């Protein structure tokens, strides 16, 4: 399996999709996370992503290997954004390509679920009058 794993300022969605195309694959499933304008009924002005980049890339690599062991996928792309992000900006891109569609759907779902659980990246939301690190308060 070929994989692309990156953390970058701006996610190039076109390039990400292009790298998922494979002649033996009939299906590509992607997930794109974008910045929402509301969270818990509070109006979001913008976001900031901080990353522990070396460890985040290593964890993403581990997740890719887990997915490749579990599903027959030929291409895998995982990209997370860092820095300041505005409403509707893409913040994460997950994509897998497989011969049959079920595997791509399952692998992509697994990768985004696990990324949100274990990859050391932190999101700070800024509202009209204050900011907060998400998940940092009980």
């Amino acid at each position: 399996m070929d994989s692309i794993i990156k953390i970058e300022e701006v996610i190039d969605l076109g390039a990400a999709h292009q790298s998922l195309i494979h002649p033996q694959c009939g299906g590509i499933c992607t997930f794109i996370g974008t910045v929402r304008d509301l969270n818990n009924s509070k109006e979001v002005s913008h976001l900031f992503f901080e990353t522990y980049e070396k460890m985040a890339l290593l964890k993403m690599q581990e997740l890719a290997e887990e997915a490749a062991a579990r599903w027959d996928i030929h291409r895998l792309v995982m990209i997370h954004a860092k820095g300041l992000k505005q409403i509707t900006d893409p913040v994460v891109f997950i994509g897998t390509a497989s011969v049959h569609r079920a595997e791509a759907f399952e692998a992509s779902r697994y990768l985004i679920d696990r990324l949100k659980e274990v990859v050391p990246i932190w999101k700070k939301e800024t509202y009209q009058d204050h900011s907060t690190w998400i998940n940092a308060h009980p």
Partner: protein
Amino acid sequence: MKIHAFGAAKDITGSSLIDFPVEETFVKVKDLKSLLYAKYPDLTNLPSLAISVNLFYASEDTMVNKHDEVALIPPVSGG
């Protein structure tokens, strides 16, 4: 011992790289956490605090060497 701090943990410690005094060459993660909680009591308000050692999540009993790369990992919120 140099300790990286991220997100809410960085806000609590006031720095992204803290120079934390540890007497022994080796210290257990759970003892290191006790020392950190004593110096930065607000860390106990986090829903969880993981410690990474050389880029891997450590267990409470992992032994940390003074020269390891250690980081404070508050709850992640990527994606």
